[in-house]
């Protein structure tokens, strides 16, 4: 990769401008790739603005793009992507309102204190495909861990005891549905049981393909569709970041 980068003396003019900007802003230490990233960003930003400006100009039935169109394009993009935090007087106003309400009393002995279920993430309808932690054959190469998220098929209804609603199960790229090989997991244990543990997916078992979640309502209706589930032994080492490149196809299938 090093050989691809131009030496400073023969760097293109834009790259020199970027280097000068960094110098002006007082940044003295940076990786050489930063200049490339800045150039890419500039190119993308300018192209987007000019394309938008062209659209506005044609909408206004003008033959050429002029400064007003560009100005409008910049403003619209600014409101979309480069937002800034709310102004101070607004924040002070909101804070004053919020701080007036007294702190709520704490109910005693209420188990894990969590917000109402609709605001919690305790009922995920997906499962993360975990990365195999074998010793990487391409050692020395820093690779990005890929996460594939299983396709959403059935939405669990709120896991309170109630009428088990009909679940429509939509599967994607599934062979014949095969019964789970003991990899069940629940959304929430209903309160008929005494335990108050909220369990969720175990994170370590590896699955080969996309797994659709089951949802457990009451104690009975388990609607599951799965693909082949092969659990493999994953060697967990305590080294923080041994990464392995994963396939893209599962990710793209979403």
């Amino acid at each position, binding site marked *: 990769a090093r050989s691809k980068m131009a030496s400073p003396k023969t760097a293109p003019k834009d790259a020199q401008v970027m280097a000068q900007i960094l110098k002006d802003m007082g940044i003295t230490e940076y990786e050489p790739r930063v200049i490339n990233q800045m150039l890419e960003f500039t190119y993308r930003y300018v192209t987007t603005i000019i394309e938008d400006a062209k659209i506005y100009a044609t909408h206004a039935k003008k033959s050429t793009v002029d400064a007003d169109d560009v100005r409008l394009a910049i403003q619209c993009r600014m409101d979309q992507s480069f937002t*800034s*935090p709310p102004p101070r007087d607004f924040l002070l106003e909101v804070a004053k309102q919020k701080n007036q309400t007294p702190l709520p009393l704490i109910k005693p002995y209420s188990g894990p204190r*969590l917000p109402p279920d609709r605001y919690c993430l305790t009922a995920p309808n997906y499962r993360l495909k975990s990365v195999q932690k074998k010793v990487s054959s391409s050692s020395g190469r820093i690779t990005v861990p890929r996460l594939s998220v299983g396709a959403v098929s059935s939405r669990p209804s709120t896991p309170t005891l109630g009428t088990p609603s009909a679940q429509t199960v939509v599967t994607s790229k599934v062979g014949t549905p095969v019964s789970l090989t003991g990899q069940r997991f629940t959304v929430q244990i209903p309160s008929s049981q005494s335990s108050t543990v*909220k369990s969720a997916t175990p994170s370590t078992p590896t699955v080969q393909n996309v797994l659709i979640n089951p949802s457990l309502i009451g104690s009975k209706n388990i609607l599951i569709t799965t693909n082949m589930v092969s659990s493999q032994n994953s060697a967990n080492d305590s080294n923080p970041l041994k990464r392995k490149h994963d396939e893209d196809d599962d990710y793209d299938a979403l």
Partner: protein
Amino acid sequence: KMAAVQDGSIEPEPDKEIKTEILNDVAGNLAPAAAGMLSSSPVPAPVPMAAPKPTPSAAEAKDQQTLLAVLQFLKKNKLVESAGGAGAGGGQSGDAEGGDASSLLSRVSSTPAAPSPVVAAPIPAKATGGEQPDVSVVLSAYSQQGDPALYQVYYNGLKKFIESVLDCHRAELSQVFYPLFVHMYLELVYNNHENEAKAFFEKFSGDQECYYEDDLRVLSGLSKREHMKGNETLLDFRTSKFVLRISRDSYQLLKRHLQERQNNQIWNIIQEHLYIDIFDGMPRSKSQIDSMSGSLAGEAKREANKAKVFYGLLKEPEIEVPLDDEDEEAENEEGKPKKKKPKKDSMGSKSKKQDPNAPAQNRIPLPELKDSDKLDKIMNMKEATKRVRLGPENLPSICFYTFLNAYQGLTAVDFTDDSSLIAGGFADSTVRVWSVTPKKLRSVKSAADLSLIDKESDDVLERIMDEKTASESKILHGHSGPVYGIGFSPDRNYLLSSSEDGTVRLWSLQTFTCLVGYKGHNYPVWDTQFSPYGYYFISGGHDRVARLWATDHYQPLRMFSGHLADVTCTRFHPNSNYVATGSADRTIRLWDVLNGNCVRILTGHKGPIHSLAFSPNGKFLASGATDGRVLLWDIGHGLMIGELKGHTDTVYALKFSRDGEILASGSMDNTVRLWDSLKAFDDIETDDFTAATGHIHLPDNSQELLLGTYMTKSSPVIHLHFTRRNLLLAAGGYNP
């Protein structure tokens, strides 16, 4: 006559004849009236507006300027009338008229160099308090019309004056330079005088204090008004008052000089943008001023630090005794009156005296102790008996946990209180938890398996754990941006993580899954921490606000708003009643959890603050910033009591030992330094003068207080933790 003038002003397109008519009409009254009206305020009468200032621009522009001045005078006049007579109704109409006038102003003035944007700017937010400054600003800007080069002249004049005063006053008056420079520069940029702004900047930016260098660099990149729009920090700077503390003698000198005719421009700016907190007494020396200044908002006003702060600790409940006795004691404590009463032993309380500086037990609702918490406390006390007594003769051993292969991706670390788990937040948006002890991490079994176990067995708590997936580390996925803040809960059940994606996530350490995502900041959240008693937690982020949450509310309970720039560090006080926030505006604020008020503003750092630590007794606060200094503060008085120099790079980690004898600091310069905090806190002089005026005289004893410097092999230290037995643990990512 007033009616005629009023008609003229409401017309959307004022005719030239009417203008000249108005002019002739009012000209006679304008000059003396203006003079009379304006001299009632401290603003001396500027050049009488009646005679339109001969400008090089066209006659039309001249008339416009006149009209502007007339309208301003009208506005002022109306308000004077309403203030004198009608009261609220009159005030309303006066304001409405003023509103009309200013809107008309903005319509009339089409030239970019018009002063009207100044009036229509966010400044109306404080227009209610400062009608006169508005007028004076407009008028002064009017008088600058077409001649921003005068800014340089004025600044130069002030510079010469200050250089000529007596030595004792010069240091104090030099404080004026920086805010004045920035406001004048922003004024020029805001009014679109780009070239003059650049020239002004080039000429005078070198004179400023070295610690403002970063700000000046940001300013140098800002040459157009559009640049200012997105920069909330700068807008806040423009609309808030920079606080200066000057002795009365120096102030008189300055005032006398500036009220002479040719210097009123600067006087106007000072009036509008600066708040001068005058004190009686000796002028401060340069070193005293330097130690307190550096923040984006100047120093703190004296009354900002006058509120009473309950910095004492809450009483620990007795737990050796069986449960019923403990309830009795709790009741006793609640039955006691608030701490403001002088303590009397005849209250029938237990042998422990009430600390007058401690908050009441029920000042804020706190969760009750569960059985597991009580067991934990008993463990804590047992460990405390085995605790090593640290001191200058007895330094702690340091165990450093290096994160390998993190490639600068390690952004946050935390230890549990009993030092059994370590969690790391990474730039790839994962959170990883490791077990420090040989005991592996186990998560709870799935529901199907749980239904199979024998619930009556004695070791049911062991059986619910899944042996098959036990491992030394667990990875938690969920964030969509780098994880900048991490905090364990005191009961080891939960883990918090805050990220660049704007959310704070609560993870369960029983199941190693995410339980809740708290959305509120829509911008990166830089830090988060649980309260020492659990249940509450705080977060601070890029939106300049720190929020207090409870785990069972999906919205924050308190919002601590007031900082001018990002909140980079948030810490609870040991008694959970106060929250300290350090910010990129170089101030530290202490907030009251009960009502969200800011009770202390502490200035003195010269860079964004990245670490805060409360002493275990709750009285003192230590802070570390990018300038490499560690500052010690007395919370009760709101004063700086110590300065520890030694680090050469940002101080990212600060921790007091368990009994407060040693302060450990870890920095980006790959060192851990130990400081003698007992000695530092012994040397405080808090006589009445110091407390009243906030003047401090810091002894330069950093060298004596430094007990040891320990280098790592190119691993910046980003977290420190004293175990219950006073062993120091440190953590950082290897960064060759």
